[in-house]
């Protein structure tokens, strides 16, 4: 995975969040390029040199050159050696001094630079850095200087983040799930479609990567929901056949008042006239002699 991130050259943008910090992946990439024999210049604005070098072997550490903007970036205390032109001047000086193929420039972090410098100036400097290859002679294969930039994406609006993304050849967005880190990688190869891939990994204390399987939750996605027809198992019909419709139309409903009904009510038939009610009280029936409506003043 590290090889593919470093293959294209140019700007590699690492976008991290508070929960999934990207500095350890940045250090893994630094280790990788140091092992390739490159000199690594680090523009450190967020952590001290000791903290940054922590965890690297001595042979890697001797390939790292740390430009310390952590202790006194704004020149508040006058006693420390200051960089007169600010961090960008250091970058420009670096790009002039060294042949691009042998050096990796690490910006820790782009967020700090974005908060303190205008976005356009920063983008122009980064663009100039990655355009260095145009000056090299035409016979050699084109090699771009590697720039690794760490960006805390919550700190910036969509505008500056978008501007930096458009400059980047490789974009890595860190996230995670269930305690495992994942990187969504976007590679912009020249004259090809950009490719997307997602890798799950953990970073070992010696800054090597341990690629992992996709966590269980994602590897067994929910079975695809088959579209069930809700009308299959109904206890009633939704439509009527022609015969059924005729039967329904010919039916007279009980509340419909027709002339036959009226006749039947006005002239009771012979069966009704002869009917009687027979009432035989129970043996233990408590018959009340009093008139139940006695209290009503009728």
């Amino acid at each position, binding site marked *: 995975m590290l090889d593919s991130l470093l293959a294209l050259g140019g700007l590699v943008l690492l976008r991290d969040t508070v929960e999934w*910090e990207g500095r350890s992946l940045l250090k893994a990439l630094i280790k990788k390029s140091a092992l390739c024999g490159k000199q690594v210049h680090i523009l450190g604005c967020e952590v001290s040199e000791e903290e940054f070098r922590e*965890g690297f072997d001595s042979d890697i550490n001797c390939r790292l050159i740390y430009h310390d903007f952590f202790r006194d970036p704004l020149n*508040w205390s006058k006693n420390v050696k200051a960089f007169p032109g600010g961090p960008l001047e250091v970058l420009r000086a670096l790009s002039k001094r060294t042949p691009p193929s042998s050096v990796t420039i690490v910006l820790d972090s782009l967020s700090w630079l974005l908060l303190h410098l205008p976005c356009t100036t920063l983008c122009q400097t980064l663009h100039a850095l990655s355009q260095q290859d145009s000056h090299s002679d035409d016979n050699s294969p084109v090699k771009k200087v590697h720039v690794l930039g760490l960006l805390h994406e919550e700190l910036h609006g969509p505008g500056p983040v978008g501007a930096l993304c458009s400059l980047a050849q490789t974009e890595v967005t860190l996230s995670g799930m269930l305690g495992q880190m994942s990187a969504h990688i976007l590679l912009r190869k020249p004259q090809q479609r950009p490719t997307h891939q997602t890798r799950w990994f953990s970073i070992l204390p010696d800054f090597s990567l341990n690629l992992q399987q996709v966590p269980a939750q994602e590897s067994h996605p929910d079975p695809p929901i088959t579209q069930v027809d809700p009308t299959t198992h109904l206890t009633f019909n939704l439509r009527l056949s022609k015969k059924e419709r005729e039967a329904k139309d010919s039916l007279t409903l009980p509340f419909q008042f027709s002339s036959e009904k009226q006749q039947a009510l006005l002239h009771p038939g012979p069966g009704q006239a002869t009917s009687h009610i027979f009432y035989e009280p129970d043996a233990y029936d408590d018959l009340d002699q009093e008139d139940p409506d006695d209290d009503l003043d009728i």
Partner: protein
Amino acid sequence: MFPELNNLLNTTPERAEQGKLTLLCDAKTDGSFLVHHFLSFYLKANCKVCFVALVQSFSHYNIVGQKLGVSLTTARERGQLVFFEGLKSSVDVFFQAQEEPHPLQFLRETSAGDLRPLYEFVQEALKPVDSGEVTWRCPVLLVDDLSVLLSLGVGAVSVLDFVQYCRAAVCWNQKGNMVVLVHDSGDSEDEDNDILLNGVSHQSHLILRAEGLATGFCRDVHGQLTILWRKLLQPTTQRERSLTYQYKIQDKTVSFFARGMSPAVL
């Protein structure tokens, strides 16, 4: 100091870690109990403490401190505690002629100034002295709270610079600790506060986030606390990176329990 919180953080005053920045963050609740915890914790740990208190008066912190078993008055007399009382000092900025810049000098400046005078005050307060007296273990800077600085007109980037300078001076140079409180307004419109909160989050080693319950006020569960360890690079320690507990604040202590396991519920 709340022993239960120490257990959760796996620490005691005797073996407090050094060189760390702890961010306390509260959303929809009052996270000041965490400030009181860390104040009494570091006073008990025999550290030299500089407390930049911008929210409450000295007597308030003193009264709460006494409940937790520390006397701020005594600590101040012994030289262990340097208490910067923002509420009183802010008045001095206006009504007292001063030769050297006041820590809250930015209040007098028309344009949004930086916090360099405040940083210099902190640096002076925690400067190691060879007086031959009692030696303190390590310096600690406590700020209650950084969001107030935004309300006083300082830009978020200036506050972040202040935090970075303090980190360089206290955490890195003197191997001390920093604890700062930032409110989470939960309001996406408040961009400055978001930048401050996220910026300090990215700088910190440990984040304690106190949140009110989503379901609203409850008599027996006052909120939930999320503990997030950042920059953990030892997979050997089988500790979770993030833990969430619910808590209930009592008179002199705070009890923590797993979510949904409040004694009042069970």
